[in-house]
C-alpha cells in the first residue's frame, strides 16, 4: 500500500497528538485532560460537523444520491451487528457477544472526523449528507443487539429489557441528538448562519481536533494495559472486522456509484466502532457483559488502528477502484 499515504496520514498534527497522548500513558507521565474538558471538545466537534454538514446540505439540496447513501448507511448499520454477533458467538457467551457486536455495528464520530481532515489534506471533500448518514448509523446497532439478546439469552424475569427506555436511549442519546439538531440548524440558517459560526466552528476545527485527539490518546493508552485480558481472538477481531466492514462498504459504494469522497467516508463509518453511545447503553441493558472487553476493544484496538492505519488503507483501496 502507498507508504506515502501512510506517512501523509501519520505526519499530521492531529494523529501525532493522538500518539503523544498514548505515549504519555506508556511513559507513566501524569498528563491528563480532566473532565469536562473532553466533553467540551467532543461537543464542539459534533456541533461543528453538524453545522457545517447542514450548510453543505443547504447548498447541495436533498438529491437522489443523498437518499442512496442514507439507505446504504442504514443497511450496514443493521447488517454489521448481526454478522458480528454470530462470529463472536464462536468464542463468547451471548451477553458479551451482543455488547461487542453492537459496539462494532455503531460508529465513532471522531474517526469519521479524522478521516475527513485526512481527505481534506488530500484536497478532496465529501457531501454534507454523510453527516446525516453517520447520525443514522449510530443507534440501530443498539436495538439489533438487544433483539439478538432477547432471542438468544435466557434471562430471569427481573432483567427484562425496558424497550421504551432502550429506544429513547438509542435514538435520543446526546451525540445523535446534537448532530441531528445542528445539522438542521446549519441547513436552515444556510450561508448567513455559517458565516457567523465559521470563525469558531470552522476555522478552529483542525486545532480542536488535535487537542481532542491528545485526550483520546491518553484514554486509549489507559486501556492498553487491558489488551492482554482481551485475548488474541478479540484483538484479531478488533482489527479484521473493521477491514472487512470497510471492504464490504467499498464494494457497496462502488455498486451504487457513490462519489470517491463519499465512498471513503462511508467505509470509515462502517469500519469504526462506538466507544460512547453503545457502551453507555450496554452497561444499562446488558450489565452481564464485561465493559472492559467492549470498551477496550473499541478504544484501545480499533480506534488507534483506524486512525493510524485504517484510514490510509481504506483510502488506498478506494483510490485503486475509483482512480
Amino acid at each position, binding site marked *: 500500500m502507498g507508504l506515502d499515504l501512510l506517512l501523509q496520514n501519520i505526519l499530521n498534527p492531529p494523529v501525532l497528538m493522538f500518539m503523544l497522548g498514548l505515549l504519555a500513558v506508556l511513559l507513566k507521565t501524569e498528563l491528563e485532560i480532566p473532565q469536562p474538558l473532553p466533553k467540551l471538545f467532543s461537543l464542539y466537534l459534533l456541533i461543528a460537523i453538524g453545522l457545517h454538514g447542514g450548510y453543505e446540505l443547504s447548498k447541495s439540496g436533498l438529491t437522489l444520491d443523498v437518499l442512496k447513501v442514507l439507505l446504504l448507511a442504514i443497511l450496514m448499520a443493521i447488517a454489521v451487528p448481526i454478522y458480528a454477533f454470530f462470529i463472536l458467538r464462536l468464542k463468547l457467551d451471548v451477553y458479551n457477544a451482543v455488547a461487542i457486536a453492537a459496539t462494532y455495528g455503531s460508529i465513532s464520530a471522531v474517526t469519521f472526523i479524522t478521516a475527513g481532515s485526512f481527505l481534506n489534506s488530500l484536497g478532496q471533500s465529501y457531501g454534507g449528507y454523510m453527516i446525516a448518514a453517520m447520525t443514522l448509523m449510530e443507534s440501530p446497532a443498539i436495538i439489533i443487539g438487544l433483539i439478538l439478546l432477547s432471542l438468544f439469552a435466557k434471562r430471569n424475569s*427481573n432483567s427484562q429489557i425496558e424497550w421504551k427506555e432502550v429506544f429513547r436511549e438509542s435514538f435520543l442519546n446526546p451525540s445523535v441528538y446534537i448532530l441531528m439538531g445542528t445539522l438542521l440548524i446549519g441547513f436552515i440558517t444556510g450561508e448567513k448562519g455559517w458565516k457567523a459560526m465559521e470563525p469558531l466552528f470552522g476555522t478552529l476545527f483542525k486545532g480542536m481536533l488535535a487537542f481532542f485527539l491528545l485526550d483520546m490518546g491518553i484514554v486509549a493508552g489507559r486501556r492498553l494495559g487491558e489488551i492482554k485480558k482481551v485475548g488474541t481472538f478479540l484483538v484479531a477481531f478488533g482489527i479484521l472486522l473493521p477491514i472487512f466492514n470497510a471492504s464490504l462498504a467499498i464494494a457497496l459504494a462502488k455498486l451504487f456509484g457513490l462519489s470517491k469522497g463519499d465512498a471513503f467516508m462511508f467505509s470509515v463509518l462502517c469500519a469504526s466502532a462506538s466507544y460512547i453511545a453503545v457502551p453507555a447503553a450496554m452497561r444499562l441493558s446488558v450489565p452481564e457483559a464485561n465493559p472492559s472487553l467492549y470498551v477496550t476493544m473499541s478504544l484501545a484496538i480499533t480506534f488507534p488502528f483506524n486512525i493510524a492505519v485504517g484510514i490510509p488503507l481504506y483510502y488506498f483501496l478506494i483510490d485503486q477502484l475509483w482512480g
Partner: protein
Amino acid sequence: MEPMKKVEVVIDSVHLNKVLEILEKQGVSGYTVIRDVWGKGERGIMAGDELTDVFKNSYIFTVCTEEVAKRVAESLRPLLSKVGGVCIISDVLWLVH
C-alpha cells in the same frame, strides 16, 4: 437527637436512578448523593474514565428509621447482586430541628 440509621450505597453511576427510585419507594425522608466517586471492588477498578463515563460510581446515603432501613436494604439486595456495589448501615443520632 433521635436515634436513626444511616444507609450508605456505592454503585455504578448508571444505576443511580434505580437506587433513588428504591429509596423513594421505601419512603425515606430524603437522601444525599455524591457523583463521581471511584473505587475498587469485586468488579475491579472503577476509576471514572473521562471519555466513556464507564467505570464511574456514585455514593448515596440516606438517614431513616430502622425499619425503613431494613426495607431499603432488602429491596436493594437484588439490584446489588446483579450489578454490584456495596450497601452498609450504621447507627446515627439525628439532630431534630
